[in-house]
């Protein structure tokens, strides 16, 4: 790093940039492509959940609450009556995915989606 310093060393890059398109992504006028495996919102497929509460036990922020919810669930070929279902408090969720890893059903009853847009206008929508 012994070259002589002069003012305006970045000038060639500036002039090149004047000819290029801006690097800004004009969101929300253009949709954003997220890669596969992006950690988006957590969603629950109630018809698959067997109510084991493993997700609530594993969650680091303890944002999953098991609430009452009677339903019939098909699990390993049998129909079972289940009493509890998980509700995710999206404001506390850190989208770590431990709940998805801990869920014993296949396909998973609680899973990370790729929905990244988190802005809502009503609070009720984000609780569960």
């Amino acid at each position, binding site marked *: 790093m012994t070259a002589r310093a002069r*003012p*305006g060393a*970045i*000038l060639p890059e*500036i002039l090149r*940039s*004047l000819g*290029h398109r*801006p*690097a*800004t992504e*004009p969101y929300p006028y253009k949709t954003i492509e997220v890669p596969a495996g992006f950690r988006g919102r957590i969603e629950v497929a109630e018809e698959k959940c067997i109510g084991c509460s493993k997700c609530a036990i594993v969650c680091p922020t303890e944002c999953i609450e098991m609430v009452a919810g009677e339903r019939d669930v098909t699990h390993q070929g049998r129909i079972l009556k289940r009493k509890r279902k998980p509700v995710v408090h999206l404001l506390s969720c850190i989208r770590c995915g431990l709940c998805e890893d801990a869920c014993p059903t296949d396909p998973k009853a609680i899973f990370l989606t790729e929905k990244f847009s988190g802005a809502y206008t009503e609070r009720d929508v984000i609780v569960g």
Partner: protein
Amino acid sequence: MDAGLLTLYLFVFPGILFLLGFAFFSEWYDRRLTARMQNRMGPPFLQPFADFVKLLSKEDITPTGVPRRLYAAIPLFAFAAVATAFLYVPVLGAASPFGFPGDLVLVLYLLTLPTILVFLLGWTSNNVFARLGAVRSVSQLFVYEVPFFLAALGPALAYETWALGDIVARQAGGLWIVLFEPLGFAVLLIALQAKLERVPFDIPEAETEIVAGPTTELTGKKLALWNVSKDMLLATGAALVVALFLGGPTLPGVTLDGVLGAVIAFFVFFLKVLFVLLLLALLKAALGRLRLDQLMDWGWKVLTPAALVQIAVVLAVKAGGWL
């Protein structure tokens, strides 16, 4: 000019309303150019106007311990000084209708006023950051004012006149002063950048060091007026450079008469101003901020001697009879 046309000139075009529009346009153009140089998008066209309107609606607070009327008057004085200076700059034809022999001196002095007002603003604000910024602003004034005046002296000396109208008219033949005084052009641009307190000379308003410098305590309408004055200073400074060095609103070799002539002259003037704004934006984008002692060092060792060399060259050329 009769009273009606004079009033139109004064208040509409190229008077106050035009100047306001021109100021907003200059700020937009500068911000957009800088953004594109930095490979990003930049604000939409109405952004400066939107900022102005937004600030007008904000709460206007005068801190305790600050003389209220004086504090409120300072942005008004700055606005008035710059607006008056713009009256003498030729925009439509070779001379402004208010021009008189010696108006260059008047314009230069009027353009010094905003810096003095910056100092007053910072000093009377009851805020340590503002006070520091005010002191820095005056220190910077000593560094760039001499080269600025000397560089503006160059064209006046070349054509032996203090009237802006004469300087522009004498360049109408095509011999723009920048062609034989390039050093003076460079010095004037750099000194103008320092007068406008933009990077690399935005030491008084160094955001990362002293919050906002002298304007720290300005809010609401006062801040709106102050920002507009700064934009007007940019516009007037660019127009002055165009008039002094680039031939103002004249096209080489073409006589522009009547209404069509005035329109073409204005268009030519506009293009030249865009060029000067491009150069100023390049200066702003390509460099980092200097420290005050480094600026003083460089200013007195490089900038002022360059201006003096230019004056010496002009004198020599005149003595040799080539002009």
